[in-house]
Structures are given as C-alpha cells and as structure tokens.
C-alpha cells in the first residue's frame, strides 16, 4: 500500500471546518441540556403530580430512543406537520432532547443522594432555603454528579457524528466526504480518528483531574 499523507493536508480546511461544527454542536447541545436537565429534574422532584408525570414520560421516552431515529424523525417526518428545521438545528434539537433526559437523571441522583441530615444541619444554623442550596446541597450534588456528567459529555462529543446522516458538516461528515472524493480511505479515516482522539483525550484527562480535585469523601 502506498500512502499519500499530503491528502490530509489538502483537506485541512475541511477538517478544521468539521472540527468547529463538531465542537459547536456539542457545546450548544450541552448549553441547552444543562438547564433542560435541571428543569426536568425539578419537575420530577416536584410535589405537583402532573409535572412529575410529564417529566417521567419525557425521560423514559428519550432515554430509550436511538439518536439516529430521532434525527431522521425530526428531519423527515416533522416537515409533514409543517415544522422545517435546517440540518444543524435538527442535530441540536435531537441531541438536546436526549441529553436533557440523561442530565436530569444524573442531577436527580446527585441531589437525592444528599442526606436529609445535611439540610437539617444547615437549617438549624439559621440558613434560608436558598443559602442551604447554594452553600450545602448543590456543591455536594455537583461533585457527586461530576463523573456521570463527564461521561455524558464525552459520549455526546462522539455522538455528534451521528448527525452526519443528514449532512451536517461536522467532523465525520467532512471526513467521509473527503474520503469519497479522494478515494484515500486509509489516510482520511486515520486522520479522522487522530483528530477525534486529540479532541477527546485532553477532555478525558481534564475530567479525571476534576474528579480527583473535587471528590467528596464521607
């Protein structure tokens, strides 16, 4: 096999564009899915039964739905109901729906894992409910959910590749395009793998470091 790595350099701008879209897709999705997850978590812990019901149905539906099915559904079926979303937005909506469901479960586990004694202790010191959340409950809950949340982030980062099926120009899509044009399958796919790794590895290391730094010991 004679290899021609210059092909990768030729496609550098395409790769860069793909990387930017991948990062943008993951970041925008998380920016939606963090508040989304918190809202759904609060609904599931709410004393109002209807809200709990809606949130439960939401979580059970979207946790069980394959992303690719949701992408196709929004892109090809929703237009029949008059909803036309461009590819990038379709990707954001599909990813956000699913990641919000995951986040809500992660956050819920974190908040519910804080013993009642901790709020008793804070209240007995004269804290308001707000001070209690900010000083006592949330700092502990956030530390507890950090590992699960980081896993969700790393999965999300890779899952963005699935929206290539509707021609969103993220890293997978541009790589596959480059491969189709150049027929240099080995070089292009290797480059693609290397780029995903270079993006993912520092994140995984950062996550490990955060987990060690903020670990809560009991």
């Amino acid at each position, binding site marked *: 096999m004679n290899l021609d790595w210059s092909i990768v350099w030729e496609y550098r701008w395409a790769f860069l564009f793909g990387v930017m879209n991948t990062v943008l897709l993951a970041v925008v999705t998380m920016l939606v899915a963090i508040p989304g997850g918190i809202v759904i978590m609060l609904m599931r812990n709410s004393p109002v039964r209807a809200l709990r019901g809606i949130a439960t149905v939401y979580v059970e539906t979207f946790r069980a739905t394959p992303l690719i099915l949701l992408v196709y559904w929004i892109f090809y079926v929703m237009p029949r109901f008059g909803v036309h979303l461009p590819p990038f937005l379709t990707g954001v909506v599909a990813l956000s729906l699913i990641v919000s469901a995951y986040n809500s479960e992660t956050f819920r586990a974190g908040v519910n894992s804080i013993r009642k004694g901790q709020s008793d202790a804070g209240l007995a010191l004269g804290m308001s409910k707000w*001070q209690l959340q900010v*000083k*006592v409950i949330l700092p502990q809950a956030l530390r507890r959910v950090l590992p699960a949340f980081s896993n969700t982030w790393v999965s999300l980062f890779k899952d963005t590749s699935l929206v290539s099926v509707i021609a969103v120009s993220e890293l997978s899509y541009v790589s596959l395009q480059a491969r189709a044009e150049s027929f240099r399958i080995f070089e292009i796919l290797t480059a693609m793998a290397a780029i995903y790794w270079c993006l993912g590895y520092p994140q995984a290391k950062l996550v490990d470091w955060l987990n060690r730094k903020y670990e809560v010991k009991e």
Partner: protein
Amino acid sequence: MSRMDHQRNAIGKPPIVTYNNVEKCYGDFTALNGVTAEVNRGEVVCLIGPSGSGKSTLLRCTNALEQINGGEIIFDGAPLPKGENNVRLVRRRMGMVFQSFELFPHMTAIENINCAPVTVLGMPKREAEELSYSLLKKVGLVEKAHSYPSMLSGGQQQRIAIARALAMGPEVMLFDEPTSALDPETVGEVLSVMSDLAGEGMTMIVVTHEMSFARRVSDWIMVFDKGRVIEEGRPDNIFKHPTEGRTKEFLRHVGVEV
C-alpha cells in the same frame, strides 16, 4: 409533682423554653402526646426514655425543624413564630448537634465553623476566622482547622459540630444523642466538651443514653414514654427514687440499679 417543682424553683432561673401541651403527629401516629415542660436559663436538662418515645421529635420541634400539630412552644417569652424568615431568627439563637454529626463534607473544619456566621449573620471573614479559632481551641482541635471531616475521627467530628453550633452564639444548645454514633474510646472527649459547656452556664437540652453523664451533669431529668413526659425531677431523685413503674423499667433496661 409539686414537691419536685418546688425543688427546681430553688435553682431560681427564668424559663427559656416552655412546652405547653405539645402535640406532634406523623400521619395518624402520635409522636408527642401533650408534652408540658419547662427549661430554665442555665439549666442542663436531659431527656431520657425508651426508643421511639419522642425525645428527638421534641428537640426537632423546639427549633422548628418539625411543625407541631397542637399546643405551643414558647421560646424566650414568645411562641415559636410561623413563616420561614421569623423561624430563622429563632433558629440562630439555638444550636443543634446531631447523632450523625452532619458536618459539611466539602468544607474543612474551620470552614464548617465559620460558614454560618459569615452567610447567615454577615460576619466579616476575618472576625469569623478568629471566632472559629477560639472555638477550635475550646474543643481542643486547633491543629485540625484545615482537615476535612473525612480525615477526622467520630469524636473529633462531633467536637467540630459542637464548635459549629457555638459559632452562632446560641442561647440554648440542643443535643440529640451526640455520642451514640461514636466508638467507645471517643465518647469521653465529647462528653467532656459538653461538661465544660455546662460548667460555663450554657443552657442545654440533651437527649442521651449516657446515664452517668445525665446523672453527673444535668440539673433536671425528664423521662419520656409514648410521647409524654411521665416523670421529671433532679437526677438524684430520678435515679434513686423513681416513682413511675415505667421509669424503673427503663432504668433497669439501661443497666441502672434502682
């Protein structure tokens, strides 16, 4: 009863907490069934009695962690207020120590102590640190100021928890079985901090199974059974001459010869 009341008044201190026919239900279970009692300023009052008799419930009602369903609790001349903001004003004036310590695990010992003065009272950080150090000295743990709770023994954690409660400058301290979760070898250090506190004149309401502590340190003992105070009196009277059959039964059960 009047005989005992007479003896107690000889202490001559004004009441700080008064319970008037206090009732507390959980669903259709009655945890407090008409508790009438008084705690005077400067007194150490021990609540003893069998498991499930309502001792913890009374403490938790005292600082409004639980709402009562009937009767009233009067603190320093006024009934416990309704509404979060007013309740908070009262809670600041009472300290609480829990069986399971409940230190905040994400804060160091000193942060645990100065957290409430800073956030709740708005005390300047410097002043709060000085206060914290003096309290750490008091409980004998200055060298652990920057340790996290997970690095401390149970006895040390409980002493920090006492310091945390004292940092708010409480007028009454509520202790709910402060030594029940401790290894036997660390019980003594916590009881000694509590004895010192009593010696300084702190008003204390203590739920405890440490009968020797109750006998030695308390001014007054209340015996609980089935959500009521069935007998109360000076420690000598309660331990030597209990009048109620159920008191005798309880004391025998915890190994006190009567």
